């Protein structure tokens, strides 16, 4: 059974000051089974973030609908956890309180709440930083907290919008392994948006590529690399072959996106 069904979802942004409306996303179909790890890969402006925001309920589709476990998505909710590219920890809450935000909002009992929070703080390796303010943490640690905050809420599906986009290369590699490790142990339906081809291949069960202006799904590529995946897999011939293929596909789109600005 499919956990998430995207049925003919499109998005048109109204024209600014009477200008022509912009079609950001062509009617899109996609089905994602339970515990799948899908990465959405595309150049900027291909509508991948728009699609993710529609799934999250932060944006409304112009046509079509999104079904999560058979229920139509009408707005944002705790069943879809989201990690943003920008650092969105609440700066007035400590790390521990940030992770507890969703649980508190849903009225989970104190004792149970802190047990869940502490277990996720352990999982993302932030023990010892529970009582720090977000500002005192590095970008990578802040994004780890954001992942813990989303997961602690027990969502059916985890949505990530270029979560490691602002991090340096080394930190990004470590974060990929951390997230993949959590997914391998706990199983979860994940949609991960990125413009980094290597990241898309390394993380995914399936890579969905999107083309630019207007955005639409161009291809779906299964990734059959075995789990648990170690970072050394990035040097394997299978990985290189996938990367080369996707690079070729995305390159054309990036050229289109760059020339039509």
């Amino acid at each position: 059974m499919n956990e998430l069904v995207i049925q003919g979802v499109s998005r048109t942004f109204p024209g600014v000051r009477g200008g022509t409306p912009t079609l950001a996303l062509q009617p899109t179909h996609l089905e994602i089974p339970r515990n799948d790890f899908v990465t959405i890969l595309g150049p900027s402006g291909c509508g991948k973030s728009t699609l993710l925001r529609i799934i999250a309920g932060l944006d409304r589709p112009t046509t079509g609908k999104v079904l999560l476990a058979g229920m139509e998505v009408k707005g944002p909710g705790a069943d879809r956890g989201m990690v943003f590219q920008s650092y969105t920890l609440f700066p007035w809450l400590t790390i521990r309180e940030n992770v507890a935000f969703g649980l508190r909002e849903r009225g989970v009992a104190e004792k149970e709440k802190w047990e869940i929070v502490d277990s996720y703080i352990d999982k993302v390796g932030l023990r010892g930083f529970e009582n720090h303010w977000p500002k005192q943490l590095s970008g990578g640690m802040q994004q780890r907290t954001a992942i813990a905050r989303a997961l602690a809420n027990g969502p059916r599906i985890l949505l990530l919008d270029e979560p490691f986009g602002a991090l340096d290369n080394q930190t990004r590699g470590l974060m990929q392994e951390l997230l993949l490790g959590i997914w391998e142990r706990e199983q979860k339906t994940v949609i991960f948006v990125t413009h980094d081809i290597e990241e898309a291949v390394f993380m995914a069960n399936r890579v969905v590529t999107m083309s630019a202006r207007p955005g639409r799904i161009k291809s779906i590529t299964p990734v059959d690399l075995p789990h648990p995946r170690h970072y050394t897999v990035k040097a394997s011939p299978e990985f290189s072959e996938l990367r080369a293929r996707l690079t070729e596909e995305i390159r054309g789109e990036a050229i289109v996106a760059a020339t039509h600005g």
Partner: protein
Amino acid sequence: MTVGIDMQPLQPIRHSTRIALGILFFVLFFLAWGIATLGGFVSPTFLADPITMLNDGIYLITAQGFAYDIGMTIWRVVGGFVLASIIAVPLGIAMGAYKPIEALLEPFVSFARYLPASAFVPLLILWAGIGEMQKLLVIFIGAVFQIILMVAVAVAATRRDLVEAAYTLGAKDRGVVRRVLIPANAPDIAEILRLVLGWAWTYVIVAELIGASSGIGYMIINSQALMATGQIIFGIIVIGVIGLISDFAFKSLNRKLFAWRLA
């Protein structure tokens, strides 16, 4: 102490240097004043010298019960200001959070903000007499619209991504207001209150210049009749000192309450 001052744009300076420079200007100011008056460059009729001012101040406090006037003025400022804050802060938050409320109130508040509080004094005397209520109302009118508008602007400018993060964590509309919009803007709101409290001091003196029988402003207008410029200056300086103290208190309280901002 040697004050090594290296002037470069935006270059921070040592804490001790900062304090020394701050005090230095006060010293220079009093020095210039002393030279102008004691040196005979300015007639004492128009400007008392610092020593006369101090003597007048001691006289005011010991013989004229000026401490009571100071107390009255502080109570009026605090009373009017607290009254204005209690009404304005929630209204400002509601305006910033909900666009229909903003659309309803923003034009009126923007208009009312420019109504000079001092011009209301005659009307308020007509409505509320010359008692304490009239003094509080002058400050209330002077402060309430300013606070509403500034709080509304701060709340409306809350980072969208924080609000969206809260929604994806299962927060409802009320939760977003209570647990994101308010805490995110609490330091700004405190800073707005600190600023407006400073303005409230201007209004209270204006309120006390007309129809008052106590307060620092009342003393000042009385001293004018006596040509006692020393007393007037002492009164003005007392206001400045109280303002400085309340400003310091506000700042250090904000630092304590909103440690996350400075972390």
